[in-house]
Structures are given as structure tokens and as C-alpha cells.
């Protein structure tokens, strides 16, 4: 096999990995602060993709431009979901939380099926088939834009948690729940905000992802599994870890597909997941658990 194919495949894997990383940020933020694993992760992302699709079809808004709108819409959805529903199971055992989120996932899938039908649908932008060639490297434009957009959104999120007062307050809640209450933070509101920010990430990632793949109601579960792999590899609750994990999984799946049979790709990822759990359970960039 010619050497340039490795380069091409690796670059495209890294760009796709950035989007996976962005979606995983949503999972990571929610877990890091609220300590709930969002098993409806993929389904919420699919909702974001469908919102993007509607905006594109009826208003002609390019998916990249609709990122803020979709993120805002899903922020509202996440805020309400946490404040009305998820909050009530916060004190319950893991398996009850899991069951609730699984039920939410089932509801979302069936709503999407009823509203949009079972067929895969995509947004055909004008530049869908353009590719740039730099020497032996062929990069397709959509993937390049998508990867860059994912980086921008992730950077905005990092800045929010580092510099904004609300962002700092949310971090405080995550680090020390009791302490946050003692100093008078409105924890309930902050948790709802956090869940909203998490789902906003999913909305943004969904909008970007629609450029690369077509959406259908049953796309959710594999996206959830993928995010689990990434979040464990990168480190639960660590934001840079999520991005790193995304890129790592994106690139390594691509290379593994090239070297092995592509249908073994996911075994490779799950194998990596098992390995990381055993060698470094807190993930590559995660903090060691107490």
C-alpha cells in the first residue's frame, strides 16, 4: 500500500475524532458535575441532528451556521430535562438512573421515528463534495470545516469553565457539592445549567456531524457507545481528556481499519477501552479517584 494513504486516513480520522470529542464533552461535563451517566447521549445528539436538518431544509441555514441555534435549543431541552426529571433520581442507585435515561432514550427514538420517518436524511451543502489537495494529501472540505468548528466550540467551552463566573461556580459544584451549598451557590440551578451545557455540546456536535453522516432515528445507540469508549479512554469528567480521547479513537480506528479488516474496528476500540480501564481506570487525563 502506498504511504500517502496512511497520511490521508490518519488526517481524516483525526478530523472526525474532533467531532466525536466534542460530543463526548457533553457526556463528560454532565458526569463530572452531576455524577450522572447520560445513557440517552446518542439519542439527544440525534435530536440535535434533526433540528439542524429542519433548519437546513426549511430555512436554508447551513449546518455550520446553525450551530448556535441548535446548541441553544438543546440547552433549553437539557435544562428542563434535568430540572424536571433527572433531578428526581439524583439520590437513587446507579441502575435506577440508568433505567430512567434508557427510558428517555426510547422516548426520543420513537418521537424521532414518528416525526421524521425511518429513512436516513442528510443536509446537502454546496461544498459537500469538494476536497482540497495538498501534495499527496486529499482532505475533504466538509470534514475540515467540521473538525475546525468542533475545535472552536470546544475552545469556547474551555474558556467558559475557566474564566466565566458561572463556569467557575459549576466547577465548584462538581468538586465539592457540600461546600458549594455551604457557600450559598444555587446548586439546583447550576446543575440544570450544567445539564443544559452538556446537551448544548451535543447539539453543536450534532449540527456538525450532519455534514458528515445522514441522520435516522436509530443512530443514537452506536453514538452513545462510542462516547463511552472515548470518555473512559480520555478520563471521565476531564474536558481535555474528552477531546484527546476523541482524536485518539478517531485516528486509531482509522488506522486499525487500514491494517486489519475494517469490520474489526470496533473490537479494536473496545479492546482499547478494556485496556485503559485495567491499566489506568481514571483515563489518560482523568484525576485519580479517591
Amino acid at each position: 500500500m502506498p504511504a500517502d494513504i496512511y497520511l490521508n486516513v490518519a488526517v481524516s480520522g483525526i478530523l472526525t475524532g474532533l467531532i466525536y470529542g466534542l460530543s463526548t464533552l457533553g457526556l463528560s461535563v454532565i458526569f463530572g458535575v452531576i455524577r450522572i451517566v447520560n445513557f440517552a447521549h446518542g439519542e439527544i445528539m440525534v435530536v440535535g441532528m434533526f433540528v439542524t436538518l429542519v433548519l437546513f431544509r426549511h430555512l436554508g441555514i447551513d449546518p455550520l451556521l446553525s450551530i448556535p441555534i441548535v446548541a441553544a435549543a438543546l440547552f433549553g431541552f437539557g435544562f428542563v430535562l434535568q430540572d424536571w426529571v433527572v433531578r428526581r433520581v439524583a439520590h437513587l442507585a446507579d441502575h435506577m438512573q440508568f433505567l430512567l435515561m434508557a427510558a428517555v432514550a426510547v422516548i426520543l427514538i420513537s418521537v424521532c421515528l414518528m416525526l421524521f420517518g425511518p429513512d436516513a436524511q442528510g443536509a446537502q451543502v454546496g461544498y459537500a463534495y469538494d476536497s482540497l489537495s495538498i501534495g499527496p494529501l486529499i482532505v475533504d472540505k466538509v470534514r475540515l470545516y467540521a473538525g475546525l468548528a468542533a475545535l472552536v466550540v470546544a475552545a469556547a467551552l474551555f474558556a467558559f469553565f475557566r474564566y466565566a463566573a458561572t463556569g467557575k461556580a459549576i466547577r465548584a459544584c462538581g468538586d465539592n457539592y457540600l461546600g458549594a451549598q455551604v457557600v450559598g451557590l444555587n446548586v439546583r440551578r447550576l446543575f440544570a445549567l450544567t445539564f443544559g451545557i452538556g446537551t448544548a455540546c451535543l447539539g453543536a456536535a450534532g449540527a456538525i456531524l450532519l455534514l458528515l453522516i445522514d441522520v435516522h432515528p436509530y443512530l443514537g445507540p452506536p453514538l452513545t457507545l462510542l462516547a463511552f469508549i472515548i470518555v473512559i479512554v480520555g478520563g471521565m469528567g476531564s474536558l481535555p481528556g474528552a477531546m484527546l480521547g476523541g482524536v485518539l479513537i478517531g485516528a486509531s480506528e482509522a488506522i486499525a481499519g487500514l491494517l486489519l479488516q475494517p469490520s474489526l474496528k470496533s473490537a479494536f476500540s473496545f479492546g482499547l477501552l478494556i485496556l485503559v480501564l485495567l491499566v489506568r481506570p481514571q483515563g489518560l487525563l482523568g484525576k485519580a479517584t479517591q
Partner: protein
Amino acid sequence: MTCKPHTVITRRTFSTGVTAAGLTAAAGPFNVLRAQGGALKVGVLLPRSGVQAGIGQDCQRGVEIAPGIFKDLGLPNLQIMNGDTESNPQIARAQAEKLINEGAQLLVGAFDSGQTTTIAQVAEQRGIPLVINIAAAPPITEQGYKFVFRNFPTAPMILGDAFANQKEIFAATGSAPKSAAFLHVNDTFGTAMQKGIGAVMPRFNMPYKIAETIAYDPRARDLSVEIAKAKATGADALLVVSRLNDAILLTRELVKQRWTPMAVLSMGPGWYEDQYLKTLGKLSDGPMSFVPWYDPNKKLSKQLEAVLAKAYPAINLNTNHIFTFEALLVAADAYKRAGSTDPKALADAIRKTNITDNVSIGPGIQFDAKGQNDKVKDAAIQNRDGKLVTLAPKAAANAKPDWPLKPYDKRG
């Protein structure tokens, strides 16, 4: 348009004659019995929700358009009972039991091999005939079942016809690929085809060699690596077994990675489906599919096309509609001849089925001792301007191949 070869006309004339004779013979006494028995209750099991919902709902269209045509053919009316398998073999089994309990006297279904297998067991245990619309896994008709019938080719049959039709096309164009990359989805159907290739291909002395076999995960969201790998083999042609979403993804990657093979030869669903044509527009032109198909020159095909066009103007007639319709046709025809709703009598009647006025390619619908229609033939079809034309076999052809594939970057 090509001129229809002489032999075809002969055979078709012959077929029509046989059908006409059959109809007259069957008409007399049985009509009375039928009037007494009421409509035959047919349970139609399809994956109308779950991961296969799109295909299940498409098959359902074949059910919707049947009654009007049956009326024209003088066939008895069927009372359809719908069951949703939710793309899950366990639910398929329970639904089959449920329909039988609610009075279904015959079952039709269920697109997917796994679901069909569980339904077949129930049908066999309860002694209710099952007419399979679509399911290609060979073992289903290798179990010695007495109540299970399949009017759909098995994977080796699909392959055999595909190679024969490909050779016909290569001969017509005077050009053939020397090597092909074989890309297949790693699911039930894809594996059955991959297994079959090793056994069937040597018999056909094909002009091309398989440069590399690449299997991909049915859950894959991104197929860029797969195309990069196929392109790197330097093969002339791309041989694929995929599904609808993958077909669209693969085509996009072909365009983006700037690779136009001499031909894309598909031996499964996806590349000819409406969603593919609609989504990709000009880029959808050119791929050839070697699939169980309808004979556009048959009378009933024209009728079916017309009825579907009226009911669903945006949809081209395809495999899903044809074989679901034909399964019901088998049911109605057997009911007419049996003159009773007794499942045993129905099964006996189905075994003696000889429908020559049908839609799919080949001499018609008959079942061998295993309950398999071993005479059903596949076609080679090609996408052209959002429509589908039939290239081979000669008997069913209505166009000449467009060869080689027009470069993707020169389509404006």
C-alpha cells in the same frame, strides 16, 4: 431501446397462454367455495419499526397496492393483518403466534433472515403456511419444513445470476475489468454473499480477479477508510454488497477521494433505491445492481408499475415491493385453487403453485420440494437519470449498458 429478441416473445406468448388456460380451469367450481369461506386472513409480518423500519415500511407499500391488482386478475380478496416485528427476532416470533391466534390462516414476511427463521419455526409448528417475501440466508429452506415457501433467491443463486449477467454486459460492451475490490457489509446477508463468492465464482470463469476482500461493520458511520483501502488496491472495478445508508456514504467517499472505478457492481440493496437516487442526484447515475428484480416486459410488471406510480408518485418500483406483492400473489392464487382456508389445503396448493403471469424475472413462480422457488432470476439494472433500466438478462432487458462509469468529477 433494444429490440426484443425473438425467443422472448415466444416464451411470453406461451406463458400467457398457460396462464389463461389455468385461470379458466380454476375459475368454475372454486369461486362458489370461496364465497362461502370469506376472505383469507393473511398475517403480514414486517420490521416496520426498529433499525430496519425503512425497509419494512417500503415492503408495506407492496402490500398496499395488491388488492386493486388482485381484483383485476380475478383473484380472491385477502384480509390483511399487520404485525410489526420491531426488527427483533423474539418479537417476530411472538407476533407470529399472535397473528395465528387472531385467526391468520397464512403468514407472509419478514425481510430479515433472523426474524424470518423464528417465524418459520412458528409457522411449521402451528401448521400455518409461511410465504417468505425476502430473506436470502440459505438455511431457511434447508430445514425440511413443510409449510415454508420462499419466492426469493438464496445468496448463491443471487451470485450465480450476478456473474452470468456481468459476463453478458462485458460481452455487450467489449470491455471488462481485470481486477475488482470486493467490499461487503459484515451482516447476515453480506456474509452469506462473501461465503458464496468463493464457491460460485470459479464456475463462471470471470475475467476479473478479486484483488482484496474488505468487510466493514454494519454499524459503521464513516466509510472513508474502506474506500481508501479499496482505492489503494488499484482495482479497476468495485464489487459491493452493502445497504442503503452505506451505499450513499460509499458514493460520497468515491467522489471525495476522487476515485471513479470502471464500474460499480452491486450485488445487494442500496445502490438502486429511491433514497439513493434522490439523495445523490447526478452522482447516483451509473452503478449497476445485480438483484432480484422485475421483468419490465411482463404484463403484470407494467400494471404494478402503474398502480405504484399512482399510489406513490415519487417512488420507483423495487425489490421490496415486487417480492412482497408476489408473496401475496402466491397466497391469493393458492387460496383460489384450494378453495378453502384450511392451512393444510393451502400449503398443498402452494406447493403446486405455477404462476407464469408474474412480476419477477424467470419462467414464473413454482416451488421445489424444499419450498424454494429455484427458477427465480435476477436482473442487472443501472441507474440512469433518477430512473432504473434493466440491462440483463436479455429476455428482460430494456436498455443497453452505459459503460464505463462516467467520472464523478465531470458531472457538472
